[in-house]
């Protein structure tokens, strides 16, 4: 490289995208995106869900080809045809959902993909020692990956990305599954990686992280670059305005929280912002609303997984009518199993679940719905919708027996009901006869909400990660519906890993820790965030 091309600057960028577009059928995921990342810089790519951030990552990592435009690395055209190509030419990626195989040991995961017969264990041990020295990243090569905590697994993931000495690392929403303490450690690692001369692309939708660790930012909205530049010249408000396309001022506290805007100070006091206070039901003067009669009550619940691990360990929980109770915690502490037991999808090993005093421990999902229990499951695609069926069929699946005439389904009545629900819950769809899989994620979630919240009678709602993967408009709709439900006397239980959202939305927050619930912490306490963060590490309040 003695004579760089005339157009190249003094140091060719580690990554340059020029006019990169990608379409999926009629959908434009990326539209003429330009991006330049220099060695040693942390370049944050910001945007709401669906803005095209992951598509961008996948193109650079070789999982996808661009429909048009060009990608260059160090001034040379870069067209990886698969991830193996990308890794071989010095690009690695830390995936949002871990790329490690749970049934392999850490060592096997780190050695995977090198090909050949002989495994270079000694070389790996040397490299691990180097990485531990340089970045303080220590991993146990003999541990089974699936048995590690989420934080430890991400540590392995980062080590794996650093192993081949890459000069460009992509981080795709890396902090979504981490607790507050782990996020701080992660960000300092990212900084050190960049300071060692590696180019870092950090994909995120959390502003607090961007301002802490980033050098430059590029904001995507609807697949287009809508702004960016050095972070020294951009304020958080500028970035949010770019991301959502409107001013920050009128943002609901929950929305602000989901962007990470309000992270340092406690949120959730009713006066935090406009709108929230008026709708939020306040159990006046009582910081612990468990004083009211519990609609949903869980006593001494135990769940043992098929492999013998105890996922829920003698858990007690009471959700009174008219209040919103949150469950925070790092994922994998029994929250998913608790929600599955509450929905009736999983049978508890011991303990009882009562709804309005009726024991439903042994009841299936059908009888529970009849008693007024609405469930918004964690995995929308697998558990909440049938993708091939229409919007109307999905909305009404649980109550087809009300829609029968002479033993046959009354299609006119179905359509009428569905159209009413679609209008009331603002589900954007081409029609109630469109397959629900054709809707955007946010609108699918609104349809699920419409179905579950329109139960009659509705006594209790269990929502697991109700805002995950939704853009701000959809988050707003979901939050508003949950507040309305609570205001009308329904008991609302929200499980989420987004602590800031929970603090802004809920009356009290429990922390799931190793199958038990710690707390509760009332969210109008100014130190609520600190208390919850401490509980997430297992410290007893």
């Amino acid at each position, binding site marked *: 490289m003695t004579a760089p091309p005339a157009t190249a600057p003094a140091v060719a960028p580690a990554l340059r995208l020029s006019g990169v577009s990608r379409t*999926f059928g009629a959908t434009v995921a990326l539209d003429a995106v330009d991006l330049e990342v220099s060695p040693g810089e942390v370049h944050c790519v910001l945007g709401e869900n669906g803005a095209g951030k992951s*598509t961008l990552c*996948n193109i650079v*990592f070789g*999982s*996808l*080809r661009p429909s048009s435009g060009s990608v260059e690395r160090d001034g040379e055209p870069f067209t990886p045809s*698969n*991830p*193996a190509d990308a*890794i*071989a030419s010095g690009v690695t*990626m830390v*995936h949002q959902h*871990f*790329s*490690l*195989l749970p*049934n*392999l040991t850490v060592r*096997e*995961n780190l*050695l*995977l*993909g*090198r*090909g*050949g*017969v*002989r*495994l270079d264990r000694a070389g790996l041990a040397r490299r691990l020692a180097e990485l531990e020295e340089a970045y303080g990243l220590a991993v146990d090569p003999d541990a089974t990956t699936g048995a590690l905590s989420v934080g430890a697994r991400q540590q392995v993931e980062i080590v*794996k990305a650093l192993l081949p000495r890459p000069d460009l690392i992509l981080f795709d929403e890396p902090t979504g599954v981490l607790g507050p303490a782990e996020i701080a450690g992660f960000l300092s690692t990212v900084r050190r990686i960049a300071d060692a001369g590696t180019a870092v692309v950090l994909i995120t939708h959390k502003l607090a992280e961007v301002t802490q660790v980033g050098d430059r930012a590029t904001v995507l909205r609807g697949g287009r670059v809508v702004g960016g530049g050095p972070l020294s010249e951009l304020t958080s408000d500028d970035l949010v305005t770019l991301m959502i396309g409107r001013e920050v001022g009128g943002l609901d506290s929950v929305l602000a929280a989901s962007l990470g805007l309000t992270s340092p100070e406690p949120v959730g006091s009713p006066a935090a912002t406009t709108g929230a206070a008026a709708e939020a039901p306040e159990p006046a003067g009582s910081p612990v609303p468990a004083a009211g009669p519990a609609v949903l009550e869980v006593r001494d619940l135990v769940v043992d997984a098929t492999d013998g691990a105890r996922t829920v360990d003698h858990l007690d929980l009471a959700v009174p009518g008219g209040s919103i109770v949150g469950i925070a915690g790092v994922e994998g502490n029994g929250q998913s199993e608790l929600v599955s037991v509450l929905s009736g999808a999983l049978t508890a090993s011991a303990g009882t679940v009562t709804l309005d005093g009726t024991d439903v421990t042994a009841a299936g999902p059908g009888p529970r719905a009849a008693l007024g229990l609405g469930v918004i499951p964690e995995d929308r695609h697998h558990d909440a919708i049938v993708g091939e069926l229409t919007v109307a069929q999905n909305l009404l699946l649980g109550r087809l027996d009300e829609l029968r005439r002479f033993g046959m389904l009354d299609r006119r009545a179905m359509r009428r009901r569905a159209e009413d629900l679609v209008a009331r819950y603002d589900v954007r769809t081409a029609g109630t006869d469109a397959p629900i899989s054709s809707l955007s994620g946010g609108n699918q979630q609104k349809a699920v909400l419409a179905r579950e919240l329109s139960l009659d009678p509705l006594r209790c709602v269990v929502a697991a990660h109700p805002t995950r993967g939704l853009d701000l408009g959809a988050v707003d709709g979901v939050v508003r519906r949950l507040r309305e439900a609570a205001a009308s006397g329904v008991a609302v239980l929200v499980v989420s890993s987004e602590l800031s959202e929970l603090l802004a939305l809920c009356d009290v927050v429990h922390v799931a820790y190793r199958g038990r619930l710690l707390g509760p912490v009332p969210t109008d306490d100014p130190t609520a965030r600190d208390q919850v963060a401490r509980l997430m590490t297992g410290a007893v309040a």
Partner: protein
Amino acid sequence: MTSMLTDLLVASVSLTIPVLVAANGELVSERAGVLNMSVEGMMLTGAFAGVVGATSTGSPVAGVLCGLAAGIVLGAVQALLSVTLRANQIVTGIALTTLAIAATTFGARLLLADRGVSVPGFDRLAVPVLSDIPVVGPALFAQTGLAYALVGVVVVLALLTSRRTGWGLAIDAAGEDATKADWAGVPVRRVRWLAVVGVGALSGLAGTQLALSEVHTFTDNMTAGIGYLAVVAVIAGRWKAVPVMVASLVFGVAQALQFTLPALGVDVPFALLVMLPYVLALLAVGGLVTHSRPPSALTVPFVRAGA
């Protein structure tokens, strides 16, 4: 009595080897995520091509090469269907087997009509001294050269694809979660293609062993379900090399009882004995003998998201 036991062992080992060879190929393929119900068809085709090759050239080694080539061709067809075209693996596998039964039966009418000609095959080689060991000697040390070679192939294959090699890790990763394996840089499609072609090669060789070392001729549908036993041996062996070998041996013994029990004078209807290996197979697949988890991505085709 001792001679009866010796006979049983000789028959058992002879009947074990074809199952063992095919099952070890199938083991690698299933670990990589591809189920081949066509093992039976590949074995039968291998046996047919082996006999055609041996009779037309007069050389049993040429017969083995023909059987190997025929197995590889069928393996490539199965890989094209399962890996590249992402077709249903169970349906295509059974269809290929059915096709192979019909095609070899037809081919035998065309090419092997003059049944009088003897098929050049492999003779048993008695290892001096060792083959004289009482009871086990004749079973273990008086097999054909092809049988020894195939056992060697199985052992080498098992070592090269163990979890302690790069290949073995790539195979397990492709069968456990192909997307994650792809992210880690494993060429998932290539791994699966090679695994399925490998099944074809080993099944073809297993077929030639049956035809050229044991039966010394080709008869219609002569494998008669041994290929399916190989698939079952993988399940019964919990997708691990050594237990799969043990399961193959159990099926070998179960088949050998058909011939030795009547000879012992035990009064059991022959048809019941013919059923025995398949009853064991049902018990094994039903989880009554062993219980374990198959590779997570077994029969799940791989395609990059959005690609």
